[in-house]
């Protein structure tokens, strides 16, 4: 049988950039494809015991982000009216509001709420699903040292830390290798 390997490189540590690699990896593995995620640079935070629970969504420098309140907030009596008012004042992406202290946490809370309302799994849940589906989770050796992360700072159930050459070799060994960079 022809061997297939899908490798996903997770290099970003924000909440929005943590979800795509985990969703793709868990799905690919459940379709029967041998799948690995290589966590490098800020992507290491996705598998950091503490940091994975508080990944944030940055409104600053993210022009695609609308001022979106989750439906559950909009339907709440007083909060909903405040939300409606804010959306009326700032109909477009409120780039300037990103500099207000606390805005990143506020946006992150809104994102988490919206995800929950829509039945989207959070990062720790998706990591568990990846493990269940036997996705190989590989931390990047070099960036671990760069950030000063030790093995015990990262979650359990990971593959041994690997370098770029090991990872590339692992992927290209397959008859049909695929790489996705996130």
């Amino acid at each position: 049988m022809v061997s297939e390997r899908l490798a996903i490189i997770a290099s970003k540590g924000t909440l929005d950039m943590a979800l795509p690699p985990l969703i793709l990896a868990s799905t690919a593995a459940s379709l029967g494809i041998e799948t690995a995620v290589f966590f490098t640079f800020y992507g290491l935070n996705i598998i950091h015991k503490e940091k994975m629970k508080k990944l944030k969504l940055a409104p600053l420098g993210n022009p695609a982000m609308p001022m979106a309140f989750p439906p559950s907030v909009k339907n709440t009596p007083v909060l909903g009216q405040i939300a409606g008012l804010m959306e009326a004042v700032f109909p477009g992406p409120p780039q300037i509001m990103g500099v207000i202290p606390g805005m990143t946490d506020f946006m992150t809370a809104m994102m988490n709420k919206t995800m929950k309302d829509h039945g989207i799994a959070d990062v720790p849940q998706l990591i568990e699903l990846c493990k269940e589906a036997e996705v190989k989770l590989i931390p990047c050796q070099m960036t671990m040292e760069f950030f000063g992360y030790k093995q015990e700072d990262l979650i359990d159930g990971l593959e041994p830390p690997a370098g770029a050459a090991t990872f590339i070799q692992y992927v290209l060994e397959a008859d049909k290798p695929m790489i996705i960079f996130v």
Partner: protein
Amino acid sequence: MASVTADKTLDTSGLNCPLPVLKTKKALEELQAGQVLEVISTDPGSKADIPAFCQRTGHELIETVEEGGKYIFYIRKKG
């Protein structure tokens, strides 16, 4: 109404991509070859994703029913 009877039902109502597919895979693992799993989903994406999952994994998608915002799939586990 579907013309097949299911050996097991999986309700993924309210869950979104990729959970319906992942839960379907897990539920199928608990069945014997030839048994039928009924999957209920409210995720519009599952309309294409569940058939793609079946095509890829070789399980047989016997029937798809769409009623009242719900998608119901009948999948026979491959032998």
